[in-house]
């Protein structure tokens, strides 16, 4: 046993010092109850109004404590990116790290300052947080979203663009596209919630192709894109990008540039590889069935691509000299270069689709002939006629339809470029023609005199915001809240347009029924008036018999969900059915193709069964 050596322990009176503590407050007095700290991480709170059910909280939760619960009673709106589900928390797993709060794209999730729950009921630890808190007593909020502590990347990578002075007199493409590095950075912003997938009319696999870009695998990305869209070059440039409207990141920040990412994917894969990827799942055997498609726009060509891949023999008939429809003849080249449309169509042609251009339905080929040649016929002739305002003087030859002029520009057909022009309309077509004319005017006269007259106020414009901004940079004037009254004509010459102030656009039932203040008249001098107030279809080629056979609904051909008409061999797709925009046309093209395939192969199977 070790010895314990004596040590110096100070004066023997030292312990008496402790007596002084008899008269002091004890150091360990029980603490008074107090509310938890302002940033306390207690039980969760969730603002159901703000929450969109994107499930990002579930993704970041490192303990799998969060599960999304489907609540049918809640509103669901895929176009706005709202799902009827809310996070439920399992407090047997939660570690109160609050990463779910910091990542929440909407900022709906927060934590309260409540932290006590005692119960023998195990189920009571699995709760669906709302604003009332764990026990419905509305404890104050604790840890909540802090702008500086956001885990998300809310800022978009900038798209390099040609400056206005360089682009104002030519039709070269404005957006230069992301380089691979920027595309990967932009792709890294995506939280993979899939709202874009739900919102897209064609239900593109955007989360998957964005993820592939983030991984630097552009070929995989193209493969994901081609699952649902044979027009990545086109949609990567001019899509109405409903995906971005629904994007969860866009709830508080700038949505992920899904459209530009699609473009980056195809821009970074060589054409021969794109063809190989797109045709990977092409059927090895022919079905022996023939399909005729009228109209080589996005809907017709999408259906053609799908059907050709399934082994059918597909021929597309097109009135114009080149395929593409409105993509080529409606959208100006500075937004969508023609060689990009050609690139997409080359993939479709590589699938075996035959496209016969300069073949007008009703003139060069009749519906009866199509029916005779094919087992099924798809109509995708689109909206090819511009609507007229029908105001006094609108029948003057210098009152033109925007779609006609745009087609002429594409075709290179000459027309007298007016030194000054007024465009009636506030949608994208109005800006397409206004900006195209502005370029032609700058080239011809060195100055621009184009005015766009929109019925809507500035904050309710139908056109894309970038169209409004960029057109202004190029010298196009915009006047909001005015409706056309009459075209002013002196002798034979068109002098301009008179407009009146628009008081309201829709009536109580929400129908288009503008009311004007007739006393507030304005004169806009111009040599040409262009109407860009919408398009309509011209289906006179159907012929009397077929027109009679078909069922109609409010002037449109009645179709089922998949695009089949009341005539068994005839389907319809594209702007005729839904839209007008490219991605809706693609969606209807897919649906029609699937329906045609099912009908044709069903017949085959039925025959084989006999």
């Amino acid at each position, binding site marked *: 046993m070790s010895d314990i050596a004596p040590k110096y322990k100070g004066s023997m009176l030292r312990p008496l010092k402790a007596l002084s503590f008899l008269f002091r407050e004890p150091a360990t007095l029980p603490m008074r109850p107090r509310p938890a700290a302002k940033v306390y991480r207690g039980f969760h709170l969730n603002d159901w109004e703000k929450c969109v059910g994107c499930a990002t909280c579930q993704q970041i939760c490192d303990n799998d404590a969060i599960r999304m619960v489907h609540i049918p009673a809640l509103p669901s709106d895929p176009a706005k990116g709202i799902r009827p589900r809310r996070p439920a928390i399992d407090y047997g797993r939660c570690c109160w790290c609050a990463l779910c709060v910091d990542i929440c794209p909407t900022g709906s999730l927060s934590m309260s300052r409540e932290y006590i729950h005692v119960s023998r009921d195990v189920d009571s630890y699995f709760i669906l947080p709302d604003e009332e808190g764990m026990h419905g007593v509305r404890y104050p909020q604790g840890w909540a979203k802090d702008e*500086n*502590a956001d885990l998300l990347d809310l800022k978009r990578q900038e798209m390099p663009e040609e400056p206005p002075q360089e682009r104002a007199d030519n039709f070269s493409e404005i957006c230069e596209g992301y380089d691979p590095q920027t595309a990967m950075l932009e792709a890294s912003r995506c939280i993979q919630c899939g709202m874009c997938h739900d919102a897209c009319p064609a239900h593109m696999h955007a989360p998957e192709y964005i993820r592939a870009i983030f991984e630097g695998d552009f070929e995989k990305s193209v493969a994901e894109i081609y699952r649902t869209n044979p027009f990545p070059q086109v949609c990567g440039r001019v899509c109405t990008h409903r995906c971005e409207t629904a994007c969860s990141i866009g709830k508080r920040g700038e949505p992920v540039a899904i459209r530009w990412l699609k473009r980056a994917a195809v821009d970074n894969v060589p054409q021969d590889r794109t063809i190989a990827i797109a045709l990977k799942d092409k059927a090895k055997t022919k079905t022996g069935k023939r399909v005729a498609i009228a109209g080589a726009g996005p809907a017709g060509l999408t259906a053609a691509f799908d059907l050709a891949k399934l082994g059918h023999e597909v021929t597309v008939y097109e009135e114009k000299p080149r395929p593409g429809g409105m993509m080529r003849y409606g959208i100006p080249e500075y937004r969508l270069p023609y060689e990009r449309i050609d690139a997409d169509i080359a993939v479709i042609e590589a699938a075996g689709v035959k496209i016969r251009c300069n073949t007008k339905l009703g003139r060069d080929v009749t519906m009866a002939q199509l029916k005779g040649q094919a087992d099924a016929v798809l109509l995708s002739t689109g909206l090819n006629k511009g609507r007229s305002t029908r105001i006094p003087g609108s029948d003057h030859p210098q009152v033109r339809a925007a779609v006609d002029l745009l087609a002429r520009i594409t075709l290179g057909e000459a027309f007298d470029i007016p030194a000054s022009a007024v465009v009636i309309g506030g949608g994208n077509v109005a800006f397409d023609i206004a900006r195209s004319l502005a370029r032609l005017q700058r080239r011809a006269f060195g100055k621009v005199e184009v005015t766009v007259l929109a019925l809507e106020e500035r904050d309710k414009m139908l056109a894309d915001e970038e169209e409004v901004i960029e057109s202004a940079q190029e010298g196009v004037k915009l006047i909001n809240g005015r409706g056309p009254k009459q075209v002013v004509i002196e002798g034979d010459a068109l002098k301009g347009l008179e407009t009146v102030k628009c008081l309201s656009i829709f009536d109580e039932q929400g129908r288009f029924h503008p009311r004007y203040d007739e006393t507030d008249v304005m004169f806009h001098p111009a040599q040409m008036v262009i109407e860009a107030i919408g398009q309509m279809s011209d289906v006179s080629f159907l012929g009397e018999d077929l027109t009679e056979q078909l069922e109609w609904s409010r002037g449109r051909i009645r179709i089922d969900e998949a695009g089949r008409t009341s005539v068994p061999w005839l389907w319809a797709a594209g702007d005729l059915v839904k839209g007008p925009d490219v991605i809706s046309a693609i969606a209807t093209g897919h649906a029609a193709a699937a329906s045609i395939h099912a009908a044709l192969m069903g017949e085959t199977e039925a025959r084989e069964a006999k």
Partner: protein
Amino acid sequence: MTTPQVPDPATLAPSEEYDLYFGPNHPGIEGNYSVRVRLKGDVICQAVADGGYLHRGFEKIMEDRLWVQNIALVPRICVPDPVPMEESYARAVEMIGGLEVPLRAQWIRVLMLELSRICAHLFTFGGNAATIGLYTNMFWGVTMRDLFLDIFEEITGARIYHIYITPGGVRRDLPEGVLERIEALLVELEERMPQFEDLFFNNAVVIDRATGTGRMSAEEALAWGVTGPNLRATGVASDVRRDDPYLVYPQVDFDIVTETGGDALARMMVRKGEVVQAVKIVRQAIAALRKVGGPVRCELPNPLAWDLPAGDAYARTESSKGELGFYIVSNGGPRPYRVHVRGASSMHAVQVLEKLLVGSRIEDVAQIMFSLDACPPEVDR
């Protein structure tokens, strides 16, 4: 069936030595840990550290989680001193990813680290006293620590698992008025220090029990890989904050506290000195934070799509227990490829403890363990 024959003890050969399990639920030991001691009378002739009760597999779990998700995991490795865990992990990630921590965040981290050191030392201080029967000390130490936990709660939203330091900075800026409250608390601590002095360091029981207990020489300490206050108690002025400075420590004025005794008392003296130094550092951090503004975190990518470049890093921090290190390997993915944690206690709570126990008395086992500030969660992880 035959009944086993139980021999009559009286017929057995006389035995002088016997085995005793010390723990795993000894109240004087943090967490579940045990030491199997072989005793001859009251004196230990052999000791075997018996860990593993607290193994939670952190290093493996971390390979499964995103870089950001791991911040919720690391403070749980060591309960009494969680901030150095967060700091080491974050810094290793920053080293691999080339992230630059804003100046304000660096000062906040120093503030947090030193507050955590004060907390941990107060805890050890109380615990150590309790191992020799001085429970007043324990209550006082833990009460004082509680007041510091209030500060943590105010800054981070949680008292123990702060999950506050994140790669690239900290998660939130300091709440308003907290610096003043820390200052007031430091004054309270300083008022309390002389009482601790009387109650512990001038206490005859402590001096008797702690002097010469669990003594190691500087040579032994160095050879055994001891770091931190235990090494400094043998006279070696080694401190990661000086030897391999991180954050803004090069700008901070503080002394490395050393003692020469190398025994339990010397180790506690070092900790007392370190509390004083930590107070000094916290005051400097407060002064700096009043001047330095700006962001508290560098810009980070979306945590769900964050691939760190391939590479590895070892980040070490001077925790209250010694050198705490995180070695992280990244293969360029969204998660660590491999993580290894060098728990500061993994040296002195196992091999060193086994050596120091030999020759000491049964009643000193707990004291030796506590004076080493052995933290089993760090050992097991």
